[in-house]
């Protein structure tokens, strides 16, 4: 299922956004992407789910993987797996080629964040050899405050009553709030902020959960597939 929201549309591009279902029990949402007829080129952006927080540290943010290639060199249908940033989740955001039998072949992935660790960058593989690939690791979670990352636009989580600063000057906590929710936006520029403190669910795509003795959930994963 696609949700073409918050993306500029008058560009002759087909934009499909895959997001996890709002169900903290299933842990993983499965979709199918079907290549639009007439497509020449394809752009993939995968965001791994944010890591959970525990009593000691906030969750790390998910990795970001981008890939661009000719449409006629990839299958007409791909499997898309989008995980929640669930406390005990072990899934990554993945794109698979599902053949007639077997479990399919992993083409692209964006790793989940962990307890205090950012999601690891993906290594280029045989599929990415015919296109242009980049994968960036997530930001580590913190036991205190969070500063803007110099390498990714997704932030990890941190502690209550500490400052949180994302890229471009966005901030959800100036150090005076006991806890704060994260957020994720694509316009006017793509950026996400992790949670600070004890909020159980970080709804911010790819961002880390805050510190809590009972554990917090990181934000869900996401995939954007654009063809033109």
């Amino acid at each position, binding site marked *: 299922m696609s949700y073409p929201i918050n993306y500029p549309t008058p560009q002759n591009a087909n934009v499909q956004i895959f997001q996890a279902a709002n169900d903290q029990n299933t842990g993983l949402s499965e979709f199918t992407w079907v290549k639009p*007829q*007439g*497509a*020449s*080129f394809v752009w993939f952006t995968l965001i791994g789910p944010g890591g959970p927080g525990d009593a000691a540290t906030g969750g790390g943010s998910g990795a970001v993987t981008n890939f*661009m290639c*000719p*449409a*006629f*060199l*990839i*299958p*007409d249908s791909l499997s898309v797996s989008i995980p929640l940033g669930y406390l005990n989740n072990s899934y990554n955001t993945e794109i698979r*080629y599902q*053949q007639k039998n*077997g479990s399919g*072949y992993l083409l692209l992935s964006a790793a989940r964040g962990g307890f205090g660790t950012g999601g690891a960058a993906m290594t*280029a*593989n*045989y*599929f990415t*050899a*015919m*296109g*242009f*690939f980049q994968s960036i690791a997530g930001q580590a979670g913190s036991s205190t405050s969070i500063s803007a990352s110099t390498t990714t636009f997704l932030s990890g989580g941190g502690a209550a009553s500490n400052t949180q600063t994302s890229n471009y000057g966005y901030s959800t906590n100036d150090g005076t709030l006991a806890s704060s929710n994260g957020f994720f936006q694509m316009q006017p520029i793509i950026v996400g902020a992790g949670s600070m403190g004890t909020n159980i669910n970080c709804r911010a795509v790819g961002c880390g959960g805050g510190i809590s003795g009972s554990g917090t959930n990181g934000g869900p994963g996401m995939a954007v597939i654009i063809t033109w």
Partner: protein
Amino acid sequence: MFVRQNQQQFRNSNADVQIFYGDGSAPSATNNNRTWNKPPGVSHVYIMCIGGGGPGNGANSGGSGAVTVWYGAAQNVPDSLLVRMTAPGGGGAATVIAYRNGSGNPTNLIVANGSSSNLAGGATAANAFAASGFYQSIAGQDGASGFQSASTTTFLSGGSGGGGSTLTTNYGYVIPSPSGGFFMLQPIIVGAGGNDSGDGGIGCGGGVTAGTKGGPGMVLIASW
């Protein structure tokens, strides 16, 4: 030269896709050169070069060729390019996109090295032209003297052979012994080398038997 491929995967596509295959004798200053002319009105260009596969020599099978890709604005690409592909069994010659600059030898813009032995064609470092867009060059896979497993870095396999060994490519395709390799663009791009006495598919290594041929080079240029 095959202009505007009438293939299913390009149906309704707004892209102009031209595919050049290595055939006949090796390209040289006087022989077997092709030309790509930039279609009018295009904004972007994608170029993929595949170097030829290496031959088998009785002890080892051939390695696969390198894959080099470039993508960028059409305004950064000359209106006419010289295209030279590795011939079948091309013995290590590279597949090359070059610019005829009006005097002297053409200037190489994009190079995908071929394999001349069991060693894979090496990746090519980025040059001045590469800086005008996105660029990547990936080395091939070495040929094997027995079983061949799927590469983790390229979709073109080296050859295999000896004692009924099998060759496994990416996505689970298996080449029994003895058999020639293959190359396909759909449903997903992948190539297989030859097994034992078989020749390699495009860009792939020949089987271990002496005299097998590596697959030819190829160039795909898509613009839209």
